[in-house]
């Protein structure tokens, strides 16, 4: 391969050649044209100046052109270098951003996953809540139907009994012989009637908060409905306010409140124990204290027990909704519920209900 000869070699060779040729030919030409040696010497000096001037000009132009190109290239190179740096920085920044976005997306997906898990849990609980609500609604309809069907024959019995009693009285038939039988029938009717009307009140399906609610009667009803659960196992001590406290509220919903609290108290007692119920009137509020000798509630759980779906019962045994529903009903009645508990000793639930809701609301409206 032939190496490309470098520019500076060519230039030096050309300079030597042109210089040499100039000296040889110009001297020869001068000697031909001029014969006077003095003139020749002077001309030779001029010729030297002329050569220096021409070659100087030539080199100036050549160098300028060449250096100009070099400088341009250098500037371009610098620019490229700068650009390249900027591009790298830019690209790095973009990459950082993408990484950031990706990690954000990742955590969002994680969060969404978490949320979905939560939603799924909620849905599961909601489903059991719906099933429970549906069951309660069906029980309400069923109870009302059964109550109606029982009340009519009960009416025959009571009507017949009243007729018999009046007949015996009028005809003066030995009352001491029949009295016991008649009284037994009456007691039976009263007991059945109490159960049916208690069930009816509990499943009463209206939403008003303006019914007159006899707190003592409601709690008594709840105990009657739960009697099978409590009988022989739990001693119930009742201490009711006298005269009975009548508050404004919803009879059916208040039944639900006390059934839930009493049911919890009963379930907290593993074998045998005691439930103490006390109601009293503070003048503005009806207070009910229900104390059990059950297993109690751990301090860490105490703040969570009214949260929906919170339960310490085994799966399938409790929905975690009882106290949450209870709490909501009490809030609806503008009341309050407090718990105090000693693990292993028992729990006291205190329910405070204002005697008249309307007064409170009227005052609120007035303020507004």
């Amino acid at each position: 391969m032939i190496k490309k000869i470098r520019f500076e070699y060519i230039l030096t060779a050309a300079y030597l050649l042109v210089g040499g040729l100039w000296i040889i030919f110009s001297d020869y030409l001068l000697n031909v044209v001029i014969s006077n040696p003095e003139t020749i010497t002077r001309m030779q000096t001029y010729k030297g100046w002329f050569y220096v001037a021409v070659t100087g000009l030539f080199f100036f132009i050549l160098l300028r052109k060449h250096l100009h190109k070099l400088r341009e290239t250098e500037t371009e190179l610098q620019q490229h270098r700068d650009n390249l740096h900027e591009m790298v920085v830019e690209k790095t920044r973009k990459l950082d951003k993408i990484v950031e976005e990706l990690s954000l997306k990742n955590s969002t997906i994680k969060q969404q996953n978490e949320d979905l898990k939560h939603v799924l849990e909620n849905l599961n609980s909601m489903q059991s809540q719906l099933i429970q609500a549906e069951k309660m609604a069906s029980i309400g309809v069923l109870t009302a139907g059964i109550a109606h069907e029982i009340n009519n024959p009960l009416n025959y019995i009571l009507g017949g009994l009243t007729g018999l009693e009046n007949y015996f009285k009028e005809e003066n038939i030995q009352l001491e012989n029949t009295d016991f039988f008649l009284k037994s029938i009456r007691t039976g009717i009263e007991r059945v009637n109490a159960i049916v009307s208690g069930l009816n009140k509990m499943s009463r399906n209206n939403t008003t908060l303006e019914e007159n609610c006899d707190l003592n009667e409601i709690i008594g009803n709840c105990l009657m409905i739960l009697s099978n659960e409590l009988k022989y196992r739990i001693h119930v001590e009742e201490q009711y306010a006298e005269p009975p406290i009548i508050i404004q509220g919803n009879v059916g919903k208040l039944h639900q409140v006390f059934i839930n609290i009493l049911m919890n108290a009963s379930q907290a007692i593993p074998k045998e124990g005691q439930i103490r119920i006390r109601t009293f009137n503070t003048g503005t509020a009806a207070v009910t204290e229900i104390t059990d000798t059950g297993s109690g509630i751990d301090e860490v759980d105490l703040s969570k027990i009214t949260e929906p779906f919170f339960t310490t019962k085994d799966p399938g045994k409790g929905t975690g909704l009882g106290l949450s529903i209870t709490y909501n009903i009490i809030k609806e009645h503008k009341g309050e519920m407090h718990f105090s508990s000693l693990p292993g000793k028992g729990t006291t639930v205190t329910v405070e209900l204002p005697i008249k809701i309307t007064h409170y609301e009227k005052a609120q409206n007035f303020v507004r």
Partner: protein
Amino acid sequence: MKKPRILYVDDEPLNLLLLKANLSKQYEVLTAPDGIAGLEVLKNNRDIKVVFSDMKMPHMSGIEFIRQATALAPENHYYIVTGFDINAEIQKALDEGLIRKYFSKPFNPDEIANEIRHSLQIS
């Protein structure tokens, strides 16, 4: 003196017979198995001042019957006797003054007799 007449409307025949028998000393209880028949009885017996009606009956409810009966005889005293718990319809009738009171089944015939006596005194 002629016994005052009252009307009792109920779709259960035994309820009708029992009230009739239990009150027979003081009152003459006319009966009807549904609202339509009840309205007929009221039209033909203008001396009836006190009316008791069951709630759930064929053709029309007790409240429905009392609404039409009130149009016919506005001065009368009306009562509902029901085997169901109190409901919104009964509460509304009480609030409007359409009925004076409601009785739950099983009812004590003596209580009904007392209410009739009281009702006839003030009317």
